[in-house]
């Protein structure tokens, strides 16, 4: 069990009632505690430091403004914040793509946006959350680190102590399972 994540989760749990009571100091503590972790992840998703700073600020403001929608029975405050960050990073990536000709978002995010129509069509038929729930732990970690948090396979391999090729294979197995699930749900005519 990791001490850093435990520490962040404990701090989040302690801050929550204070934030809900509207304690002024709790908001400052919240910003101070979560700025660093979210900046780390933001840097994986967007390339320009100023975009990362804006993104993290926006996420922390959004979080305290919509705290009523957070349900601690469904997960941790940290996980909730990471989810908002990822969601807003994609929104921002779309805006940045329109604004700049050069690539300012990671290639993976850019590819994902290209596939938006297809993804929406597949999600109408396939329960991808169920697929994720059924993935073995190691495959799921690789999927989340690569597809959700934007880590390249080489970094993932180093972090979890496997070769980059193995990391790619885990992702490949997850893709194969997704392909199988899609094939089951779509008939040959695609209707």
């Amino acid at each position: 069990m990791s001490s850093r994540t435990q520490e962040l989760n404990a701090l989040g749990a302690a801050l929550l009632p204070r934030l809900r009571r509207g304690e002024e100091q709790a908001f400052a503590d919240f910003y101070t505690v979560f700025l660093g972790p979210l900046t780390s992840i933001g840097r994986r998703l967007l390339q320009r430091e100023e975009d990362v700073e804006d993104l993290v600020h926006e996420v922390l403001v959004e979080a305290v403004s919509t705290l009523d929608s957070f349900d601690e029975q469904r997960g941790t405050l940290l996980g909730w914040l990471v989810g908002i960050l990822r969601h807003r990073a994609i929104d921002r990536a779309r805006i940045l793509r329109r604004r700049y000709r050069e690539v300012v978002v990671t290639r993976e995010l850019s590819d994902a946006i290209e596939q938006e129509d297809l993804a929406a069509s597949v999600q109408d038929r396939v329960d991808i959350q169920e697929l994720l729930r059924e993935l073995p732990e190691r495959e799921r970690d690789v999927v989340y680190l690569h597809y959700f948090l934007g880590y390249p396979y080489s970094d993932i391999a180093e972090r979890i102590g496997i070769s980059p090729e193995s990391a790619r294979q885990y992702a490949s197995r997850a893709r194969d399972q997704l392909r199988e699930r899609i094939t089951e749900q779509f008939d040959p005519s695609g209707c």
Partner: protein
Amino acid sequence: MALNARSLVTKRAAWTGGTAAAPSKTPAARRSPVDPSSLTDEELDGILMLALDEAGTDIPGLDDCLTRNEQVFAAPAQPSSAQLEGFMRVVEQRGLVKQERPLTWREYLGALLPSR
């Protein structure tokens, strides 16, 4: 704008902190049919990424994954005073502060005693 209009009308919209936005430019009726046999790895990558985005934080096992891979939170960033002030200004403007910080003894006494 949120990525997919469907996410705005499901229970997940509130969970992710999603806000109301214009409808998707690609309603279901206009989507191309999917031929699973021709899906490339890149297309599957895109499908996975966007499915994860739409799920917001309601992602099975995400907390456990973050716990196992704590290095993702490595940056020891501390907010500058300008950043913190900017955040607190927004918090106050939105009326989120209901209880101000208790006064320290020094501040309390300073408020009681007449200034010289």
